[in-house]
């Protein structure tokens, strides 16, 4: 059975995590799916590690060190693409 998670769902889940657990509910920061975390100064190095830990725990995969890049993690949309890619890979491994 293919367990597909929609982009919008990932965006919503990750946004919720960042807002509550990293930004600690700060009301003066709004996140759109294309906002760059780097440019908005939303994450520091500890925040990135916490985000990675969340993704690994919540979606059930391991982030390799060389996958922790702005290309994969700098926006909600890029995270969604990254997560979907990892899940697809994981599913392919299971089927194989």
């Amino acid at each position, binding site marked *: 059975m293919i367990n597909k998670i929609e982009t919008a769902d990932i965006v919503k889940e990750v946004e919720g995590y960042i807002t509550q657990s990293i930004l600690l509910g*700060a009301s003066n920061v709004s996140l759109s799916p294309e906002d760059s975390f780097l440019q908005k100064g939303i994450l520091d190095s500890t925040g*990135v590690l916490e985000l990675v830990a969340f993704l690994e725990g919540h979606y059930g995969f391991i982030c390799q060190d060389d996958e922790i890049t*702005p290309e994969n993690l700098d926006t909600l949309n890029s995270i969604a693409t990254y997560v979907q890619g990892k899940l697809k890979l994981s599913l392919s491994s299971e089927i194989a």
Partner: protein
Amino acid sequence: MLEHASIAPKMTLMQDLLLYPAAQSPERTALMTLDENWDFGRLLHRARQYSQALDASGLANGDRVGLLMENGPQYVSAYFGTFLAGGVAVPLDYKSQSEKLAAILRDCHVRRLVIAPLQVPNVVGILEHKQHLTWIISPSELGVRSDGIKCLSVDAIEGMPINIRQDHSSPAVINYTSGSSGLPKGVTMSHRAILANTRSIVSYLELNADDRVMQILPFFYCYGASLLHTHFMVGGSVAIDNRFIYPSSVLSNMEKSGCTGFAGVPSTFHTLSTKCDLSKLRNSKLRYMTQAGGRMDPQLVDVIRSAIAPSRFFVMYGQTEASSRLTFLQPERWIDKRGSVGKPIPGVSIKIGTESGRELPCGSVGEIWAQGENLMTEYWGNADETARVLVDGWLRTGDLGRIDEEGFLFIEGRVKGIIKSRGYRISPSEVEDVLGRHPAVYEAAVMGIPDSQDGEQVSAVLSLKQGASASETELAKHCRMFLPAYKIPRRFVLVPELPKSASGKLQRESLLTLFQTVSEKFL
């Protein structure tokens, strides 16, 4: 080691760091970013645009100019543009809360603020507090303001040289730094002091025009600024990468850009050692790495030295009040002087002294005093605090240390408990004040606990009011309302009562043992 007194002898003002290489080799690369390279000629032209904009705003010699931008060509242009216009640069931490930024601007009467478009929300916050701003200068058009503040876009300015007269002993930069009282103090440095320090660093790092440093440290931090100063002094270059939260990407960029040097604080190297493939550090062009900004775990020094060999790793020590650098350890001496921060840099003297400055015998532990051309002139507008730390031409560092029989300095702690964590200086009393505002908190004590990643970890011991409760998350969230992330305690320990002496004074020394004996828990 090069003879530091002979290095760039004609440079007497900060703007000479740009004027000289631009005159000699205008097409030589000065800055590299992810998107483009800037040569010295282009950088000088942009700097002149900023200086002309400041001149058009009525800037008088010695007027302070706030710089609120992240690292990039615009910051560097605005920085040198300020000097070209005769102003005094006040670099600002763009991650600071608006209230603190407004306090700094108020303290040194900044009327002109140079910002990047991304900082507009910050400015909105600043304007809600009392300050004296009359001009906002930005790279591009920001739009007309309706609150009496005038705007100037640098893009619209031609960029002609301005004639100004300056003395090398006059203020060039004011760096605000936290003191034990929690109120930021404006460390005022002259052109001469910064250039003297720059020459010394160039000397012991043996920098030349082929050197290129990877810049991840912010320019508003004196250690970060020293990378720019030193490399421009020799006609070298700076590769700017603001993505160190993704360290592997920065390492790849270092290799691709042909960087010969890298500078970091203890948490930088902890990140490299835990999140990166260290073999990537064996970059064929990498010549050296430097470390300052707090105590680095000797075991971590061992790991990095081994990873980058034969490239060299310099452990260094300094203070903003010393224009950044006071001592360095020759890498080869780490073997027999493990844990030392080395000997004074050229032009600097160090002694271990009593409260009155009387020198103590070799091996004694006491306060570190420093003397040299690189010392600050004053804390801006704060004669009392200046007189307390600048005594008979010596700077009281506030750090405890000892000097061994060969003249090597070992840091033993801090006199007044300033926390140095992840490259930042954090005042315990500032965090304690914020915690004290939480309705459940009776009293709080904050300190730095040695940590291999952060250098020191901001940690809090609390007693709560009778019947009150508070979770770690609630306390952290409360702190987040008033403090930037790096100041929020990472650990909270709850006790029935904070330890006090017979006279009622908080006994900070015994707090350390609390972290070893009391388990962290929340009601």
